[in-house]
């Protein structure tokens, strides 16, 4: 059957879908996406589809893939989307897909309870506090009922995350098939289910952690699939950077020391050599922290750094780790459970050596200090080659989708992301679907013309004035997104006594509670930073205006950004055009995408950065955004809300 006929059969007015959903409306963008999926299957090419909220993406890819009998892995960036697919979309998909299929959700090891570790904790429960014992009792009750051992299914799980870390299925304590509890192992059960399923839902962290493990030649967690679908695919480059990076922190090393001591202690052993080496490592860790700035900082590392105090401190840590391994050696016969700690020590030693010696010129080396913690990292400069080598051979078909993939119109709009995904034009299909909402009539884009540029000293004051006027027009009901804490504080200070609307400020309460209050109190205004630029889903009146203080260019002072910029420049690539601008467009689209979440939503997008219109690159930003009418007159905003 022709692709058009198939799509009509699945999504048309006489489809099972139309008969199942009350008040079913045809969605042209959804049908277009399903057609693209079929085309990608036919051409065996990776597919990139930008589809806005409300397109019905999940059905647009699942119906073609499952109806064509493909075995599929769907990977999402957030738990919210995973829950939506599993609990909201899946019951519907089951009703309308022509072939029966089995579905499994696979999560990271830390989500599953390990029977062996649970029994160990119970045996040693005498050391626990009263509250911890209560937690253990609640766990016992839940354990009698659960079939999955997945902590997310433990409704009302009491807050004791540190104890959960002592009972989850940590790879370091897993004896594998020889485990006496292997029969009842929750993780093994989840993996078996995944192996047998036609559709497996995972998250990007698990997916890329699994891919990184495969790169190291170790056992894999995920089953083979015909097609891998990445929803929220714009998050992949950051996640890949993290999972394929090398990282060493004093936190990891302290945990290692704590775990090793615990194993020796539980065996009732006292070994002077081991104790002394543990103390030596502690001292080395103190020196490591002192060798870097006392305040919170993030900066690049260079070979020169390694010739000075930081380099000497790292060497001191490595020496202490070597000696700790030697001290563990004679204890292994008596404390078998010390084996995984020894393995971990050796792995950390290798990581430290790789970072210290700058072994890979394709990486940027940097450090971050936060309070008493110090982390040393070596992150890949580009993610494309890694994905090219590992991801594409892993399945026949790859589909990437998100509401923000393209940085402009036409095929070139996908260049930025494609490069990071290791894809070349001509070997992929890419399409930006029209938004399902009526942006032309239901939204207004406002960019003030008399405001100074963000670098100007008066900008914060002028932005605060502008925000006060805008909030009066919208009667509150706004999300104000800032690119820096300083700007948030400054605007908050300036408007707190002038806004008649309740102000909710990031940092004053946990984000979840702030968001809940923002939804409940319709007139409230939420002032937020990076974490509110994505994933905020507030349909309806509570969110009628999104204000962005400035174009969200990445900070050139960030070591990763600076190194990537230098690296691009060295290849004769204009980093501003090819990295800073596309990255900022994607961030801005994410932020402004908070506004329309339902067909009947309407509102104003206000960007208080005149460069968006006045500078040569302003056109690129405007092309990258949905088609809202542009005004530079605040009076038009007032009229819009009237």
């Amino acid at each position, binding site marked *: 059957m022709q692709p058009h006929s198939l799509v009509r059969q699945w999504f048309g007015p006489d489809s099972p879908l139309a008969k199942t959903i009350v008040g079913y409306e045809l969605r042209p963008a959804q049908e277009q996406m399903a057609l693209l999926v079929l085309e990608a299957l036919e051409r065996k090419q990776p597919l990139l589809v930008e589809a806005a909220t409300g397109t019905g993406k999940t059905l647009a890819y699942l119906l073609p893939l499952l109806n064509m009998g493909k075995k599929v892995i769907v990977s999402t960036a957030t738990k919210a989307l995973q829950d939506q697919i599993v609990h909201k979309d899946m019951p519907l998909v089951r009703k309308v897909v022509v072939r029966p299929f089995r579905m499994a959700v696979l999560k990271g090891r830390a989500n599953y309870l390990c029977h062996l570790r649970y029994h160990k904790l119970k045996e040693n429960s005498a050391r626990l506090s009263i509250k911890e014992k209560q937690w253990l009792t609640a766990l016992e009750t839940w354990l009698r009922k659960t079939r999955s051992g997945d902590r997310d299914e433990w409704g009302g799980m009491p807050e004791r995350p540190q104890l959960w870390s002592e009972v989850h299925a940590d790879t370091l304590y897993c004896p594998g098939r020889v485990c006496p509890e292997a029969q009842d192992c929750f993780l093994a059960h989840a993996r078996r289910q995944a192996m047998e399923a036609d559709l497996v839902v995972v998250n990007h962290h698990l997916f890329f952690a699994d891919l990184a493990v495969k790169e190291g030649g170790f056992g894999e967690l995920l089953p083979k699939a015909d097609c891998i679908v990445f929803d929220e695919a714009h998050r992949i480059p950051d996640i890949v950077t993290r999972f394929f990076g090398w990282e060493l922190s004093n936190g990891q090393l302290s945990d290692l020391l704590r775990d090793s001591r615990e194993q020796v202690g539980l065996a009732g052993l006292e070994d002077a050599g081991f104790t002394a080496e543990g103390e030596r490592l502690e001292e080395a860790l103190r020196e490591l922290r002192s060798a870097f700035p006392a305040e919170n900082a993030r900066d690049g590392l*260079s070979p020169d750094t390694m010739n000075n105090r930081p380099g000497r401190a790292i060497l001191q840590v490595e020496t202490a780790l070597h000696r700790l391994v030697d001290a563990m050696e004679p204890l292994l016969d008596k404390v078998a459970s010390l084996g995984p700690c020894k393995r971990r020590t050796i792995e950390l030693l290798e990581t430290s050596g790789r970072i210290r010696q700058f072994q890979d010129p394709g990486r940027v080396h940097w450090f971050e200090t936060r309070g008493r913690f110090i982390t040393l990292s070596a992150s890949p400069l*580009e993610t494309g080659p890694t994905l090219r080598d590992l991801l594409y051979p892993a399945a026949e078909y790859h589909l990437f989708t998100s509401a923000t993939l393209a940085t402009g119109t036409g095929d070139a709009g996908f260049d930025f992301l494609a490069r990071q995904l290791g894809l070349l034009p001509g*070997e992929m299909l890419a399409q930006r679907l029209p938004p399902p909402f009526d942006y032309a009539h239901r939204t207004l884009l406002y960019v003030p013309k008399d405001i100074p540029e963000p670098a100007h000293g008066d900008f914060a004051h002028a932005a605060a004035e502008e925000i006060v006027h805008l909030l009066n027009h919208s009667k509150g009901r706004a999300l104000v997104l800032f690119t820096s804490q300083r700007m948030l504080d400054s605007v908050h200070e300036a408007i707190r006594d002038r806004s008649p609307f309740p102000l909710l400020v990031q940092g004053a309460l946990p984000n979840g509670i702030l968001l809940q209050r923002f939804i409940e109190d319709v007139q409230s205004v939420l002032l937020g930073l990076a974490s509110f630029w994505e994933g905020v889903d507030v349909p309806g009146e509570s969110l009628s205006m999104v204000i962005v203080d400035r174009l969200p260019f990445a900070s050139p002072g960030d070591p990763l950004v600076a190194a990537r910029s230098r690296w691009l420049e*060295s*290849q*004769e*690539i204009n980093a501003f055009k090819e990295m800073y601008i596309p990255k900022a467009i994607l961030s801005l689209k994410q932020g402004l995408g908070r506004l329309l979440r339902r067909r009947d939503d309407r509102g104003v997008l206000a960007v208080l950065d005149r460069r968006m219109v006045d500078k040569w690159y302003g056109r690129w930003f405007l092309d990258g955004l949905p088609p809202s009418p542009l005004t530079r007159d605040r009076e038009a905003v007032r009229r819009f809300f009237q």
Partner: protein
Amino acid sequence: MTLRCLALDGSGPLGGVALLEGDRLVESTSCPEGSGFGVTLYARVEHLLTQHHVTVADLGLLTVTLGPGSFTGLRFALGLAKGMALVHGIPILGISTLALQAEASQGNHPWILPLRDAGQGLLFFGLYHALADGLREVIPPSMGRLADMSARLQATIPGETPLCCGPGVATHLEGLETMRCHVPDHPHAQPSAALLGLMGLNRWRHGAQPAALNLEPLYLRPPQAQMQRLASGT
């Protein structure tokens, strides 16, 4: 009167500025990585000239790197050099970054192969022959994959073992080890702006023709679409 020469290198990641009087180096400074060469270049030049009581009009020659190298850095340095050359009528000479690298790395080897990483598995490369009176360019600055480079070397100097040098060596070490070439222990001698000035003076004395208006950065990277085809080998 001794010829005063100002040398500007914007090819990055370490940019540099040098002032020479004849063959005597007056001062050479480099901009440490991360300081933003483009931002500090004008201030550095001004500081260097003021420090030594030299005005732009006193300069007899300008030497500047043309690339391949930092997209923005090259434009900044060349833009400044062209501006000074046009206003004060100073002759200006452009030198490729690969020739500069070859000059910095030559020892007893007759064939020198400077390399810079061009990303996506590609390299910037050139080939230079060390003769008694200086280096002669044999393969002009080019961009390609390791296999392309190997084929060109085979065709140009069959049986010879060139000396690899430059920041591209570390990135492509694995591939280079399978080729017929010599990889030294320390392949990346960072060329200084002073060396750039000396090369400029030498060429000027040997009759190199100055240019100003028509001098452009030597960008080897083709437009992105063509680039992708090159990277994929199609």
